[in-house]
């Protein structure tokens, strides 16, 4: 069953699809896949919070305010205040900027580098493929978080370096995904036909092969954003990410540890729940997208 099913359910080359207006297609897609809609709404909400953070914060998240220090959650301070009297909710809202920009930038690095290497390796084959895949194997030989930590430690503890490190760690997944797709599509008839009418390699790769990988890439991008946010939080927790006084969820949790034995839980709870919500929503969206876009994977996952 699986053999026949795999062939008939393989996606049509994108270029051949009927030209429905984009908005209509998106609306239809979302109605068909309510989980994607739900995940997407939460993700869009988080992005909006990050963009408009300075307008949303009820208090200055950095200014020290000794008279209000270590207050439990109340109507004035919904998430309480920290030892310097800073409003935890305001810090959580502004912290979304760091987390989401690390997610965005590191995933962009991973996507661009990973896909380029994957396209080159898969399409050119031969020594390029051999060399590129050994480097990818070497990157995969490291446990992911350990590699991110080592790279950040080597470059110096700064948020930009954390982005680069997490981006590098994300590369292999994109490369393998792209290369595998290129290898299977390269020999398909429509590619041969395109080559026969004289299309250049660039045109084949960008007009015909890349669009066919895009579904898997969208899924992977969502899942690796979740990983990036989690990794950034871990790096910041270890003091390798954003540096004080910039609010960052992982670093704020690390800082809150010293008040844990006094049962001042709210300093950790706000940023902890924020990380959880952000990672969960990207994981949920990625999962839903995989089920919606990739019928091959649905059966296995």
């Amino acid at each position, binding site marked *: 069953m699986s053999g026949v099913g795999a062939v008939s359910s393989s996606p049509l080359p994108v270029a051949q699809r009927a030209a429905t207006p984009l908005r209509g297609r998106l609306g239809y897609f979302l109605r068909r896949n309510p989980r994607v809609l739900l995940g997407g709404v939460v993700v869009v909400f988080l992005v909006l919070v990050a963009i408009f953070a300075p307008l949303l914060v009820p208090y200055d998240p950095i200014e020290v305010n000794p008279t209000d220090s270590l207050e439990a959650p109340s109507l004035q301070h919904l998430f309480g205040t920290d030892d310097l009297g800073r409003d935890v909710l305001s810090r959580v809202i502004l912290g979304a900027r760091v987390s989401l920009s690390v997610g965005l930038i590191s995933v962009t690095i991973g996507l661009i580098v990973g896909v380029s290497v994957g396209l080159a390796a898969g399409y050119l084959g031969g020594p390029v493929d051999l060399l590129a895949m050994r480097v990818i194997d070497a990157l995969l030989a490291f*446990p992911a978080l350990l590699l991110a*930590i080592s790279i950040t430690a080597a470059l110096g503890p700064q948020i930009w370096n954390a982005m680069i490190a997490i981006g590098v760690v994300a590369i292999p997944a994109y490369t393998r995904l792209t290369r595998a797709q290129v290898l299977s599509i390269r020999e398909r008839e429509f590619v041969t036909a395109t080559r026969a009418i004289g299309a250049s390699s660039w045109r084949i790769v960008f007009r015909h092969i890349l669009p066919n990988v895009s579904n898997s890439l969208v899924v992977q991008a969502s899942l690796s954003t979740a990983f990036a946010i989690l990794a950034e939080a871990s790096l910041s927790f270890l003091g390798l990410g954003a540096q004080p006084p910039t609010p960052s969820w992982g670093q704020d949790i690390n800082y809150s*540890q010293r008040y*844990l034995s006094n049962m001042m839980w709210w300093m950790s709870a706000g940023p902890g729940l924020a990380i959880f919500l952000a*990672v*969960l929503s990207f994981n949920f969206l990625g999962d839903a997208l995989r089920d919606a876009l990739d019928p091959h994977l649905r059966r296995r996952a």
Partner: protein
Amino acid sequence: MTEYITRRIVLMIPVAFLVTLIIFVLVRMAPGDPVLTYAGEERDPEQLEQIRKSLGLDQPLPVQYVLWLGRAAQGDFGRSIRTRQPVGDAIRERLGATLELGLAAVLLSSTISLVVGTVSALKRNSWIDIVATGITLGGVSLPNFFLGLVLILIFGLALRMFPPGGYVPFTQDPLGNLQRLVLPAITLATASLAVNMRQVRSSLLDVLAQDYVRTARAKGLRQQAVIVGHALKNALIPVVTLVGLQVGAVVEGALITETIFFWPGVGRLAVDSIGGRDYPVVQAIVLVSALSFMVTTLFVDILYGWLDPRISYGGGAR
């Protein structure tokens, strides 16, 4: 099979070299001159030159790489900059604690995921399946340092059921050792629990749809015999892979968990050494865990082929 193993090992050699090269380059890129760190208060240029020579840092980089690799191959990773202790000894001292924690976490996560995953697959879309799936997604998304702090707060500080952190050797105080193991083991197990449970569920669902399971049912076997005797055997093969990889990544998982719970293992040593710019220690830990991860991966692949004769490792391209 032998041919496959040989091929894999041959392919592994260049990758292993690349791994060592990456680690070497990363450590040399790190900010700060190791000579100054090593010298402490000493600032006399002649003395510094002496130290530079004794550390071999006056040689060209490729020479340094070869020398470092040669020593590392013999298990000599140099001395810790902070404590002057040989790095190999420092790691060996703490390996026991890490392995204890890692093993406990893997056992915990495999047992629970096996039971819950099986129930979930058999009672698909029941409330238990839905709850388990929800926990699965939640478990992957929960940062383990946050989970650790929540557990410390609830079970360590508020209810005082377990000590909130620390370590005593098993040989000194077995009960105390196990009490302190509970919270970090749960923390470490949660992330892999989610992944494992999902794998058990989905591969069991796959297997249950196979003809031979229908045959087993048709010949009148009881549900329990079908599941335990026939289905689980095959369904667990991918789970073995997953658990194997988790064993290989034990140091990585331990990094943060050990730090929060003051568990004196290799992970905590790594975190402390990164903070203290103790590069020989960091270098050695990353190298050892990357290489052991590679070896475990190979071992798991071989085991996979041995467990599942349907997989043939013929000569074809990977």
